Every structure is written in structure tokens, then in C-alpha cells.
């Protein structure tokens, strides 16, 4: 049977579009769990921002708005490129041409590199903050914030939330970079790269989601001066 030797879709599904729908829907349900995963921390952020607005303002002043803005731009550019790569794959699938492969792979590679740039900027910022003694814990430089509640330790809450939330985001970025790099390599090597359309879509959705998280983290931490 030709359909078993060269299947266009897996067993429980009726058609390729059915399988695609399942993949996209499944990933969205996963993203919902991710929303609530970050959501637990967002609840914490909202509560402490409500309780100690001054501490958050002071904390935010120590962060670099422009670096944060550049990081946002880098991420969004990556999102654009991966979306374009996805469209190229879809169109290539439709007209059965192979010419799209190179351009798509090239864009995926740049996206992954932009992710690395983002992480570089972020870890540089971490490095700076830790150097200034702003990492939460017993070494925390609370003398800088003596007019804040709990003899300056309320600012520690800001940095705790900052490191936890951006740290969790950075972890998602690492996973994302590996996934994007992996799918790029796979498309480059595959004999029938258009088969990887669903995988690429799913990875792209994840990447966009991680971007959306940063879209919110940026104003929440950098712009509450």
C-alpha cells in the first residue's frame, strides 16, 4: 500500500490538515499551561508591586532601559524571521519546489543567533547586577535602599522577582534556541523537508510565546521607574 510506505499523516488522523490542527491545538493547550506557569509568578509580582510600589520604582531605576529595549527588539526580529521561515515552508509545500529551503534555513539560523545575543545581553546584565551586590540573599546591598520598608530589604523582593521571572524566561529561551537550531539543521538535512512543516509551526508558536512573555516582562521590570 502506498499510503503506509509514504504516509502523509499518522494513524489516528483522517488527513494531513487534521493532524496539523491537532498539533497546533495541542501546542496551544501547552502554551496555556505555560501562561499559568508564569502566571504564578505574575501573581506574586502584582501582589508585591501593590504592597511596595516604592521598592519596585527604586529597583527598576537600577536596570538599563536601553539594553532592555534592545533585547526586546532582538527578540521581536527573531520572531519575524521565524514567522517568515514558516510561511516559506508552507508555500514550498504547496508548489513542491525546493528553492525555499535555503532561505528558510538561513532565517532560522539568524533567529537562533539572535536568541544567543539576547541571552548574552541578559547575562551581562545579571553580571553587572551581581557585581553591584543586588543579587538577593544575605549579601544584598540593602544599604542602598535604607528609606524603603524593612530597612531596604523590600527592594530585595523586586530583585527576587526579577531574577526568578527573567531566569525562568531565560531557561525557556535556551530551550527555544536549541529547538530552533535543531529544526533548522533538520530541514537542511531532510530529504523531504516539507514534512517538517508541522514541527516548524509548533516550534515557531513556542518561540512567539516566549517573546510574548518578554513583551510583558520588559515593562514590568524596566519601565516602572
Amino acid at each position, binding site marked *: 500500500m502506498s499510503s503506509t510506505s509514504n504516509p502523509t499523516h499518522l494513524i489516528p488522523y483522517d488527513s494531513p490538515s487534521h493532524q496539523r490542527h*491537532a498539533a497546533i491545538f495541542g501546542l496551544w493547550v501547552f502554551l496555556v*499551561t505555560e501562561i499559568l506557569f508564569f502566571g504564578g509568578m505574575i*501573581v506574586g509580582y502584582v501582589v508585591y508591586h501593590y504592597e511596595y510600589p516604592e521598592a519596585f520604582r527604586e529597583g527598576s531605576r537600577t536596570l538599563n532601559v536601553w539594553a532592555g529595549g534592545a533585547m526586546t527588539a532582538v527578540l521581536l526580529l527573531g520572531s519575524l524571521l521565524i514567522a517568515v521561515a514558516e510561511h516559506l515552508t508552507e508555500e514550498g509545500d504547496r508548489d513542491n519546489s525546493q528553492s525555499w529551503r535555503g532561505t528558510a534555513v538561513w532565517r532560522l539560523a539568524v533567529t537562533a543567533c539572535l536568541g544567543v545575543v539576547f541571552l548574552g545581553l541578559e547575562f551581562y546584565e545579571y553580571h553587572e547586577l551581581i557585581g553591584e551586590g543586588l543579587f538577593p540573599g544575605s549579601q544584598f546591598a540593602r544599604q542602598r535602599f535604607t528609606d524603603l*520598608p524593612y530597612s531596604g530589604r523590600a527592594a530585595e*523582593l523586586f530583585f*527576587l522577582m526579577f531574577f526568578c521571572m527573567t531566569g525562568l524566561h531565560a531557561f525557556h529561551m535556551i530551550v527555544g534556541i536549541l529547538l530552533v537550531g535543531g529544526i533548522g539543521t533538520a530541514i537542511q538535512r531532510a530529504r523531504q523537508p516539507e514534512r517538517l512543516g508541522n514541527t516548524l509551526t509548533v516550534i515557531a508558536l513556542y518561540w512567539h510565546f516566549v517573546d510574548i512573555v518578554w513583551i510583558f516582562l520588559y515593562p514590568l521590570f524596566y519601565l516602572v521607574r
Partner: protein
Amino acid sequence: MTGGLFTLGVIIIGGVDTGWTFYTPYSSTYANTWVILAATGIFINGFSSIATGLNFIVSIHLLRAPGLTWFRLPMFVWTTYATSLIMVLATPVLAVTLGLVAVERIFGGGIFDPAIGGDPLLFQHLFWFYSHPAVYIMILPGMGVVSEIVPCFARKPLFGYGFVAMSGLAIAALGFLVWGHHMFVSGQSIYAGLLFSFLSMLVAIPSAVKVFNWTATLYKGTIFLKTPMLYAMGFIGLFTIGGLTGISLASIGFDMHVHDTYFIVAHFHYIMVGGMVMAFLGGVHFWWPKMTGAIYSEWWGRVSALIVFLGFNLAFFPQFILGYLGNPRRYHAYAEGFQVFHIMSTLGASILGIGYLLPLGYLLWSLKYGRRASRNPWQATGLEWTTPSPPPTHNFGETPTVTGPAYDYPPAHRELVIGEGEPEKN
């Protein structure tokens, strides 16, 4: 599995002394036991619940058989769907909360630490955001099982199908808005308490819809008191008691009085043991012929159902009285006047234990010596009854097409024979 190994490992190497709720700041700052390891176990288990829930949701949305529209789904599928929604929406919050506790333990001083202005109550909010819906994860499948059993053994369509289906979803959704009822005496604002109290009482509405619809299904039905039906009726009665005491607990004044007493213990067990375990046993007895292809002894089944029901009530009803009189929970000693109730409770628990051991015996016995089950020993509707018992690896040779509603039971006569084995073939 990995998650279970972590948690079991923790028990072996020294345990956790935080209680099951991991309340901060004790768990984050003071406990000297294996909190992080236990949290890791729970975290991994959380992933497995999320994956399971995700699988169910996508399957129910996209992989229904042709003709199986949403409102032809068996009720068990509806409640599984509601359960999966809760698993997907609640578990991540618990995961991240435990993550924060771990962060706090590793770096010392943190998010829930009052010394830097953190609020331990925030932990309780996040914790109960998961843990209240979690009890609905447990009870909703039980409700689904009962909704399967009652129409089958009353030989009538389920009364108010749409309402029963939607009430399951309503319970799942409302369940996310009531968590504060665990925190009435913890120092949360009294106004938030009022809100949570009101919302908690609202949960009674969809629960009552279910109970009334089961009862209405029984009305003028041709009722066969087979083992699964006995468990299902036990469920309805005990769940009603558990549910009604739940409403009284949702009112703040009464909760203050019985907080942390045996009353709570009794309420919880009426829902979880009287409700869920009864439904579980009912489900096991209902689907046992399908799962294993063996027919168990009906006589022993009925006897053990009766023993479970009596033992359960004897064990837990006195605890309502004890709690109301002020016997606190989680103490090994109690005032002398309470002794008679404690003896009743212990006796009941022993009877309950016998009731649980009996099925283990006769169900295992039936595997070897029981008669063989036909495809559909209960003459039930539902696709699972159209395949051989036990079902082959590929459940259906050909994808079945559904043409009618669920629970399409024709009016039946007393003489109908159900639950018997395959007639001897020559």
C-alpha cells in the same frame, strides 16, 4: 514514575516534616528535611498530569468517532474533559509555587519570607489555587462513573443530559474561584473571605444539578440493584451528605467553629471516600467484565458493597459529631467524653477495611474461575460494549460510527437478565 520515586525516596531517607501543604515560612525557612527533593517529585508528577490532561483535551476535541457529536459523548468523557481542564490549568501554578519555595531554600530568604516583606499567605493563595481544584480532579471522574451506572441499571436515559454535562464544566470552572475557603482563619482579609465564601456556596448549584438529575433518572426506572448500582446509590447518598456539610463549611462563622476539627475530616471523607472511592469501586465492578472478560460473584459483590457502606458511615458519621463538639484533628489524644465516638469510628474503619479486602478476593478469584463475559453483559449502551471482552489491542477493527444519543435505553421489563456470563456453547 520518576516523580513517584523521588517522593518515595524522600519518605525512606528521612521524610518531610512540613505536612502535606508545605506551608511557608516553615517549609521555606525552618524545615530541615528533604523539602526540595519532595518538591522535585511533585514537580515531575505535575508534568505527567499536564501531559495527560493535554492528551485527553486534544483527543476529545479532535479524535471523536464519526457521528459522535459533543452531546452524544458518554458522561464519563465529559467529566474526564472537565478533569483534564483542571489538570492543565491548575498544575502549572503549583509547579511554579514549589519552584519558588525551592529558590527560597537554596538562596536563603525569599519571596514568602516576612523578614524582607514577603507574605507567607501568598504561598497559601498559590497553593490553594491548585489544591482546591485538585479535589475536583478527584471527584469529577467519580461523578462520570455514576452517570454511566445509574442509567444502565435504571434502564432509562440519563435525565437532563445537557445539564449534567454542563454542570461538570461549571464545577471545574467555579472550582478555581473558591480557594480562599481554606484560608478563612489564616489572616486573609475578611472581605476576600466573604467573596470566597459566596463563591464556594455557588459550587453547590452544579453539584445539586447532578444529584437531582441522577435521582430523576431513577424515578420510574426499572431498577436493578446489581453491585455497581449499589455503589452508585451509595455515592449519591454519601456525596449529598458531604456536599451539604460543604455548604455549611463555606459559611465563615461555622467554619471558624469547626475549623481544624474532625468535622472537616468527616466532610472531606464523605466526598473523597464516600464519594470517590464508592464511585471507583462501582466503576471497577461495572467495567470488570469488559476489562478482564470475567464475571465476578454477584452475591459477594453485593455483600461487600453493603459492608463498605455501613462501615464507612460508622467510621465517619461520628466524626461530624466529634468535630462539632470540638475535637481537633491531627492530635493523638482526646478528651475522655469523646471516647465512645472514637470507638465507633475505629470499629467502622475496621469494617470498612474488610469491605475493601473482599473485592480484592472475589475479583481476583473471578479471573480464574469466573464465567466468561459476553461483549455486553449489562446490555449497556456505549461504544466500549460493542467490542469483545476484554478488548483487543486495537479496540475497534473498524472505526465505529455513532448514530444515536448516549444512554438510549429502551423501556425494560423486570424479567430482563443482565450481568450473567456467556451462555454455555456446545
